[in-house]
């Protein structure tokens, strides 16, 4: 299927430049890993919805950062989609210096001219639909920004004992939320049970908390940034246990866990370089766990 055809009524009209009619004249900055991210062209209602959603991460739009302009798109641009039992995947169309994105009530384009900047077109003027569109866009933008910073956005659960962090990798259904709950029950903290940022700081890989979570929801408090101790690939089974992963297997798991950018042939080399560095910096294990077992105790032994 050609780009956008699953979401858009007229893929031919997909914007090729960051232009259009802004929703309003409000703007804010989001202090999220790889940021700040500046969003402009908002209505007051859109701004307030983002402030409710992202709370203290929102600041005034004065700082330098990665800019995104938000524009109107007519609802009629989008196909009606029955989302029951449907897995939502953004449609990406990467190019050497641009990325086009189509999704539910969103069109977006990132451009490198030369700095990364974005534009988001949506028919959502306010409310949860708007924050959902915006969050989906921000997840994608964060993935690209982190890559530019030599880091990565990883589909993972990030757990910590306050001093160290462990990254639990696995596709949807592998048990990231369950594993997060088990760690919480055992006395650990959870950064996010869905998406975490890995960045290198003075040669050390660190996990940074992101406001993008799964079923577990957002966790107040806890560390914002913790040195990463190990990468763990989740597996569920009868016998609990740890098995070391080869660097190649670890790299494969990390690539599979790097959403959006792992489908972009023009950023593949960069992504591989970043993840290879990560695979060399921290040990990787496969951890088999059960719902009743002592996952957290097992994780903490990896030092």
């Amino acid at each position, binding site marked *: 299927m050609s780009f956008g055809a699953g979401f858009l009524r*007229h893929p*031919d*009209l*997909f*914007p*090729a*430049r*960051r*232009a*259009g*009619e*802004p929703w309003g*004249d409000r703007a804010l900055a989001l202090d999220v890993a790889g940021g700040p991210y500046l969003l402009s*062209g908002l209505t007051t209602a859109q701004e307030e919805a983002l402030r409710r959603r992202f709370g203290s991460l929102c600041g005034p739009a004065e700082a330098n950062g990665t800019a995104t302009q938000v*524009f*109107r798109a*007519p609802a*009629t*641009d989008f196909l009606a989609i029955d989302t029951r039992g449907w897995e939502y995947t953004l449609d990406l169309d990467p*190019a050497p210096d641009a990325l086009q994105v189509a999704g539910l009530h969103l069109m977006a384009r990132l451009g490198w001219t030369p700095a990364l900047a974005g534009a988001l*077109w949506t028919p959502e003027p306010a409310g949860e639909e708007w924050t959902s569109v915006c969050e989906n866009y921000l997840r994608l933008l964060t993935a690209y920004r982190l890559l530019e910073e030599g880091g990565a956005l990883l589909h993972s659960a990030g757990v910590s004992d306050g001093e160290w962090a462990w990254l639990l990798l696995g596709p949807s259904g592998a048990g990231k939320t369950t594993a997060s709950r088990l760690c919480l029950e055992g006395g650990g903290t959870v950064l996010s049970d869905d998406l975490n940022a890995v960045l290198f700081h003075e040669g050390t890989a660190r996990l940074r908390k992101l406001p993008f979570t799964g079923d577990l929801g957002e966790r107040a408090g806890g560390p914002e940034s913790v040195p990463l101790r190990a990468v763990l690939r989740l597996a569920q089974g009868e016998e609990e246990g740890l098995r070391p992963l080869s660097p190649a297997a670890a790299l494969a798991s990390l690539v599979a866990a790097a959403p959006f950018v792992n489908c972009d042939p023009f950023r593949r080399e960069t992504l591989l370089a970043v993840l290879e560095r990560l695979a060399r910096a921290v040990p990787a294990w496969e951890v088999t766990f059960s719902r009743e077992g002592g996952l957290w105790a097992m994780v903490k032994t990896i030092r």
Partner: protein
Amino acid sequence: MSLSRVVATAWRENLLFSVLLELTYRCNLDCFFCYNDLALKGEPLSREQYFRLLADLREMEVMNLTLSGGEPLAHPDFLALGARARELGFVVRVKSNGHALRGELARRVRDEIDPFLIEVSLHGATAATHDRQTRVPGSFDRLLANLRELRDLGLRVKLNSTLTRWNEGEIEGMLDLADSLGLPLQVDPEVTPRDDGDREPLQVAPSREGVLRLFRLQFARGRAAEEGAPEVQVARGGDDGTVPTPVHKHCGAGSSGIAIDPFGNVYPCVQWRRPVGNLHQQGIGEIWRGSAGLAEVRELTVQVKERIGAEGPGSHLLNFCPGSAAAHAGSPLALYPAAVQRREALEQVMEEERKTLLPVVR
């Protein structure tokens, strides 16, 4: 009774005749030298405001309505506005890049809008050049396929091209291409700064040699026109390329024509970005009759006429545009390099022509 006399009357009596609507700055191409001011902000006109505007323009006996952009097809109400314009009896022109004009959308444009003309931009004779300018890979091949489809649908299409440093070597090829498609091609030899004053587009302004070459070709094809070759015109400022009988104004900017941007700002002409009112504050009739800004513009077009007239015979070869002058040189009265270069090139080519046509005494 001639059209030029009617146009002159419209200029003299300030009778609004032609309106260009920039419906949106959204665009599915990203032309390097596009003049749109993409940083412009404001509240877009609603469908109801557009319907009211069209009704007002009908009342004012406006004849020509051009739907432009950005890409006008990207406006949510494009078809509805076009259909209403047809219902109200306007002569509708659509300025599109043609990229999305295919299939159902092209058929609906024909059936629901019945435009007099669709004006489509051609950027080169090859995919490499065209796509370099549009910055969308595949746009050339798509355009050629769409142009054939539009022709087969019976839509009237005209090709417009801006001469640039990048395509000036392909002008013959572009003219041949237009011929092979059976479509007229109009080439504008002038690249203008962006509407916000940004001069980046001038990086691709055509060379003197490029302009000369274009004019030579146009003269040569003018001679061939008697044999039935499609006519090529140099784009002219003012009112739809119509040359009026002498009047006291240089052009119809603000006197018989206006342009309106997506946020309701009203300008005397698409080239002359001097706001004279806004439709969120006033109706078009009120602006047309009462705007102090428009009164100034009308007075300026009188001054431009005097100023350009003082350039002596051949001043018409400048094809002077006060909007371009304001953009290039900061004043609608200032001579700007592109106009001077145009006159020099035309004089040179006319001289060459004269020598060719005069019998040579041996």
